[in-house]
Every structure is written in structure tokens, then in C-alpha cells.
């Protein structure tokens, strides 16, 4: 993950970018929690909203891999495959952990 390049793509300073990433991790964690519980509760609307939020934030800051994964979940939910997305949500959580570890470590 090259923060400098990502920051440049987004159009902000590297430092501001790091700040955005941190914010992304914070909000992402909370969105993922909501997503997981929504999947458990079988609340498709709530789940789709969380996935959408994750997708939007990831795309804004240029985390394309994450974006694709979130998009897949959102589409899955919208196509009535809520149960199948639990695993993908777990993968997303792992990805976020990696990002978190990378930026904080």
C-alpha cells in the first residue's frame, strides 16, 4: 500500500490521507459491525446500507480492492443472497484489520 501515491490520486497531502484512512478504519469497523449484526438479523436494508457506506468510503480514498469486495456484498444483498454474504463480510473485516495494522504499525 503506497500511501503517497494513493494520497496523490485522491488529491490530498499524505498526512491528510493517513487521517482519512484512520477515519475510514474507525467508521469501517462500526459499519462492519452493523453489517454483521444485520446479516444475523436478516435485515437486508440495514445490511445493504452498511455495505453501501463501506463501498462509498473505500472508493473515495481509492482503496479499490476493498471497494470491489464491499460492492460484491452490496450487490449480493440487493439480489436476495443475504445469507451468502456473511463469509464475504468476514473477509472484508480481515481486509480492514490488515489495513489497520498496516497504517498503525
Amino acid at each position, binding site marked *: 500500500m503506497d500511501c503517497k501515491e494513493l494520497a496523490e490520486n485522491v488529491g490530498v497531502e499524505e498526512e491528510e490521507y493517513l487521517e482519512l484512512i484512520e477515519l475510514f478504519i474507525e467508521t469501517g469497523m462500526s459499519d462492519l459491525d452493523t453489517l454483521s449484526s444485520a446479516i444475523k438479523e436478516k435485515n437486508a436494508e440495514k445490511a445493504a446500507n452498511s455495505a453501501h457506506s463501506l463501498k462509498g*468510503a473505500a472508493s473515495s480514498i481509492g482503496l479499490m480492492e476493498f471497494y470491489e469486495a464491499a460492492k460484491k456484498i452490496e450487490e449480493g444483498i440487493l439480489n436476495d443472497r443475504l445469507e451468502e454474504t456473511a463469509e464475504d463480510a468476514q473477509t472484508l473485516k480481515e481486509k480492514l484489520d490488515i489495513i489497520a495494522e498496516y497504517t498503525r504499525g
Partner: protein
Amino acid sequence: MTKLLVVEDEGIVAKDIQIRLRNLGYEVVAVASSGEGAIQKAAETHPDLVLMDIILKGEMDGIEAAEEIISRYDIPVVYLTAHTDEKTLQRAKITEPFGYILKPFGEKNLYSTIEISLHRHKMEKKLKESEEFSSSLMRVSPNSIVVINPDTSVHYVNPALEELTGFSSSELVGTKAPYPWWTEKTRERAKKDLKEAIVSGAQKLEELFQKKNGELFWVEITSAPIRINGEFKYYLVSWVDITQRKQAEEVLRKAKQDAELANRAKSEFLANMSHEIRTPMNAVIGFTNLLCDTNLDEKQTDYANTIKKSAESLLSLINDILDFSKIEAGQLDFDEIDFDPELLAYDVCEIIRPKIESKPIEILCHIGDTIPSRVKGDPARFRQILNNLMGNASKFTKSGEIDLSLAIEEETDDRIKLHATVRDTGIGIPKDRLSAMFEPFRQVDGSSTRKYGGTGLGLSICKQITKLMSGDVWAESPSDFRFSIDDFRLEDSPKLKNNLQSSIVNSQSKGGPGSVFHFTAWLGKTEGKETKRYTPASLSGKKALVVDDNRGNLEIVTHILERVGMRVVALRSGEKAIPTLQKALEIDTPFDICIADIRMPGVSGYEVAQQIRHFKSEIPGPDLADQDDVMEKEVWEASKSNGISKSTRARAGHNPNSTMRNLPLIALSSLMERDARKCEEAGFDGFLSKPIRRGKLYQMMERLLGEGGDRHDKDERVTQQIMTQYSVREDMKSSARILLAEDNPVNQRLAKILLTKAGYYVEVANNGKEAVEKYMASPKDFDLIFMDVQMPEMDGLEATREIRKFETGNSPAIRLAGKKLEPGDIQQQSSIAPDKSGFTLYSNNRQSSIHRVPIVAMTASAMKGDREKCLEAGMDDYIAKPIKREVVYEMINKWVFGGYEGYNGL
């Protein structure tokens, strides 16, 4: 007299020579008859020249004696001989005699031979001395010297070089390049350097050479060609051994590098620390915002607001520290963007106003007439400094005035030095603390830290930033100020300068001792664009009455009006307004417009307006007065239907009552207390908040006086809507106010970073409902809305529909806007956007005529039909996420500035 030694073994011949020599004027100091005798006499008498017979009696002949004398005493010898064989002659030649005289000889021959010999000997001696001189120079020189022939072979090396390199002279002389002291590595370069040096003459360079034992050493080389009779003969090269210096340099360089690394690490640590703290703070603020939007009871709301306020003040402290460490690390970047310093100054005044709250403080803003409308620099940094100085002023001032002045201090072809002065009537600064304030972590005193808060970093950051802008920031105690005001060039207005001075004296009596802060910065000039300010020609010759109890403000407004050729009468109290207007009517030079401050002791602005609107001349009889009313009504109706200015039309009737009653009136007020409805009820046509923005005042007057503005405001005139500074579209400003409706904190933050960077104001709404509320609370405050489509509570489409309904006056959500905002609410909403809550009531009354705000949709899903859905809901444009900087700026240009290019000059 020249002394000669004669050596001749024939007594008679000797005598004869002696006589002849005397005749020629020489002194014969001695005569010898043998070789040995000659040597002895030479030693005793030190003659200038020896005349030597070759064939002598005894063991030693003349040639042998001559050899001895030449080598021992360096005395020139001339041989005298009758006849001799070839062999003897050869021998004689080897001794390098100065002359050779054959017997018998004439006196002339003798004389010329002696004289030539003496001269030659003298010359040779001189030459020898000079040679000796230069060779000893080389010998004793501590520098190593090598003399090189044109074919690169070594001609000479001095002992110092032998000692330095370990090579002996015999090892080196005759060797050609590559020389044994060149190393393998540097050979090519040395060769090139040598060649260049020979071609282009004297050189000074550093080389790494090697000794005979392989040890390396550094030399600094000086060289020069030696020309003899213009012909290149030798190349002289001198080395200074700089190995020690080089080593010391290396040590120093390394030490410096280490120190820099350590310092960078420190700064990075600080920056990271600040960053680490700032990030969770952003989350705290963001989530507190979200929390505030949930259903909280009163107590919970209070707690949440406290969290937010504390988090915000902590964040600003962290930002200070971050700025400071960035400056220390030399990492502060400066933008090069065009901006308008005048608008920036006004903006800063507006931002500061909420901080003053209800304190009786007048904010004044003096802008020099020649300040260009565009300069090139970093507006955010410029603003940061003004904010800081104005913020301090507002913090430390209880009552009186805060005055921001902007003038040109110096100007070159491509740069301009601006000088801003912030004067307040606050608690003042002790003289001995004036400079210490600008040092980091210093404040005027410990107790003020507690009373007034702050990090103590603000001013030192300002100092550093101004230095980076090739300027400075400093403070003066009030006793210095009267002196300094004379130096302070308010460039083309000596009158204004005097006024400024008097206003200072005037205001200082009201508040504390006060302080004055100066800030200077060099900025670039903008190329190509029109940088002159727009001056409305149509106002020239119009007559204005200005009423304001604040002398400083009165003078500013007067100056602004006079500058465009208006005739101005300035009054400092409301009591005199009506009599002045009346008198002007009587002598048939009526006023075209009246500008009055709302808050004045005695007769207030409201009262002035009411008196004007209900004016009844005391002179005409009752019949005439009734007629007036009828006439006026007709005129009123007429003006409504055809849009012609009522005052112009009314004056056509030459009726003093209606002329007076229809006089265009502009209210001036401080932002916090303005009440548009009250102004309107009192009869004002327009409304401006202080400090007065020049451009807005001109524009409003142009419209009210019915010239220049008709094209834009026909509709507004017909509905007789009161003008406010925000109904005069802010088409000339370079900073747009943007409402951003976005629920995701990451996107919020990113958009805020991008928009703030470009100098725009951003107000964030966390969902559609909040966006609608914020917009309805003060619709005139926003130039553009960026609306996320998918949001909780209320999505972007629905929010847009609500806003459009509200704008056209059919809003069921009107109750939302009915909630009058408290000053505290505004601060809570945003630390950047100034408070303009005074428009709440006005907005409710006048929703039918609200300007349609451009709404641009932002959405991540790029599904077909999205665009249509957005447009259907009432949006104007559409951008796809991820948010791209260029696209955002493009949208702002298109929707905010696009239609108003004609006003760029303002």
C-alpha cells in the same frame, strides 16, 4: 672607476697595456705575471675584470688561472694573446671568457671588448640572481609544485612534492601523463581536468591523488601556464594538501547529517503524535455529530454538545502544535493560488463576529483603494494569520472597536507587499512583553493563560508563517501607535489617514488601552486577469446622507462613497437626519440615498427610517398633503407594474413629501443584532452588515438608484423586497459557501479537505433532514449544495424535493425553518461558516422569492437512470463517486461562478 687586473708575464707589454688602459680611463689595481699570482691578486683586489695573457711562465697558464678566478670569484675574464694553436683556443672557449683580444690590438678594440664584457657579466649576474630567486622559492615552498612541459612530461618537481608523494625528483622528471600520483579511479577525470586546465588557463580544483606507498591524499590544485615571449612553455601546478581539511569536513558533514536526522525524527514524532491525536478527535467530533442527530433528551444534548465543544477546542490546539512542528521541520507547504485580499479580509471580519457575541464592539474594515482584486499566494495561510490576530483582538477586547486595515506597503513589477493592521481597544499589552509574545509557548502572562485560554502557539506560528511569506508580524503598544500611523501608508488617501488617526483617539477613550498588531507579506501579482477594482460610474454625482455614531465607520463609508464621485454628508447622530434632509429639499438639492446605522444612541436608525417614511412637510396646507398621498399612491402602483424605481418616479412629481418618503434607505448593522423584518417595517430598502463590503454597497446603491442593476433585479423590485447583502448575490466573491450533505465521515472529511483547500466554506449536514434544516434556516447563505443520494433519515432525492418545495413556497416542512437558531447553534454547526442566523424570520416571510440554489448529486452507484432520478427530484447536476477534486472544482465553477463573469472585477 672600473678596476682591472692585468696578467702579463712580459714586463714591457704589461707596462704598455697599463698605460693604454689608464689612457682609456680604467684603473689598473694590480699586475700579475703568473697564474698563481693572478689568483692571489684577484683575491686581494676584487677587480671588475681580468685581462689575462694565455701563455704564462710558470706552472699555471692563463686558462687555468682564468678557470679558478671565474669559479672562485665570478670575475669576468678577457683573454689577451698574440698567437695560439687551435687546441689552446678550444681550451680557452670552455672557460666561457667574456672576450678575446688578439695582439697587437688597438685601443678601440681593447675598450669595446672590456665594456661589452663588463655589461654581459652584469646581465648574466642579474639573470643568475633571478633564477636563483625563483628556484629557491620553489625549493622552500610548503606547497607541492610540479612544472610540466607542453608534451605533458614533468619538467620539475620541488622538494615539498617529493616529501608529500614519496617520489623523488629523478623518478618523476621526464615522466608523461598518466602520472604516477594519479589513481586508477580518478585517472580519467584528472586527465580531463589537466587538459581543460591547459586549454583554458588557470584553474582551481580538488583532486584525490596517491602517494608512492599507495596512500591517498586530497589536494587543492592551482595552476597557471607559463609563457615566454608569448609562447606557451610550461605549465605550473601547485598543490595544497587538504587531506586534513577534507577529513574534518567529512566529520562535520556527518555530524550535521546526524543532527538533521535526529531533528527530523523529532519533528516527525511530533507530527505523528499530533496526527495520532487528531485522528481519533475527528472521530469523536464526527460521532458526536451523529449522536446529536439521534433522539436525545435535553440533558443528553447538553452533554453531547459539551463533548463536541471540548473536542473542537482540543483539535484546534492539536492543529496548532501540528503546524508548529511542521514549520520546525520545514515541511509547511505554500499554495500559489489567486485570491482577493479584500474579500478575505471581510470574510475574516465576519468569522470573528460570532466570537464577540453580545459585547458592544464595532468591527471596522479599512481597505486601501489600490489593493488589487487578485493576488497570488496562499489564501489559507493569509487567512490563518488574520484569523489569529482578529481572534486575539476579539478575545481580549470587552468594548470599543476592532479595526482591520489592509494597505499596500511596497510594490515591484511582479510582487506586492501587503500590510495588514489589527487594532483593538482591549486590555493591551505591556511594552516589555511585546516581542516575547511571538516566541513559542509564551503568553503575556500566566494568569491570562487561565483567563483567556489558548496554546500560546498562535502568534509564534504567525511569526513563522509570515517569515515564509517574506513578511513579518509584530505588535505595538498604544503609545507607539500614534507615531507609527504616520509611517503606515494608506496609500492614496491622506484624508483617510487623518481620519483613521482621529478615530483611534476617539475609540480609545471608549475601550481599554488596546493593542496594534501588524502583519506584512509579499504576494505575487496575478498575470493576465483584470486586477483593478470595479468602480460604478453611475453613482458619480449622487448625493448621499450617511448617519452613524461610530466615527471610524462613518469615515470608512464616506470614503467609499466619495471614491466613486458621490457627494456625501456625514452625520454622527440620528437627530440631525431629518433636518438635514429637509434643508436639502428646501434648497432643491435633495439627497438621492440615505445610509443609516441601526444602533445609535438617541434617535436610532429605525426611528430615522420611520420619520423619513412618514414625513409630512410642515409648510403645505392640508389639501395639498392629501393630494400628495393620492399622487404617491399612483406612483407606487405605477412603479410596481413597470418596475421603474419608485424614488426616481416619485421625484419626477417634484413633491417634497413623496420625494422624502421615497428616499432609498440602506440600514447598516452589526450582524448579531440585525433583524431584517424590523428593518423592513421601519422602511429600509436594503440592509448591510458591518463591516461594510465596498462591492456590496456599490451594487446595492446601483440597484436602489435604478441604474446598472435593473437587468438583474426587476423581479425583486416589483415585489418590493428588502435587499440584504445576501440578496445582492455574492457574485463577485471568490469563496463560495457550500452545504455538503453526506453521511459517511470519511467522505465528509475528504470533501471538507478538498473544498477548504480551495478556499470555500463548507457546512456539513449528516443526512438529508439536516441538510434541509440547515438550508431552510438560512437559504441565502449557500451558493451550492453537494448532496449524497443515499443517506439515512432522509435521502438526497427527498431532501432535494423538500428544498425545491421550500424555495417555491409550498413547503410542508416550513416548521423546520421556523425554529429560530440561537447563536450557540451556529457555532455548534461549524467553526468556519459565519453566523447569519438573522435571516431566519425573513426567510419564512419571503420564501416565495428565494433564489434557487444549485444542487449537485453525489452518488456511488452508477446505475442507469440515476441521473434522471436526480434531475427529476430537482437537482441540477450529478457527479459520480469517488469524489474527484477536479470534478468538484469544476462543478463549483460551473454552478457558482459560471453566470457571473461580468462581475469578476468587483
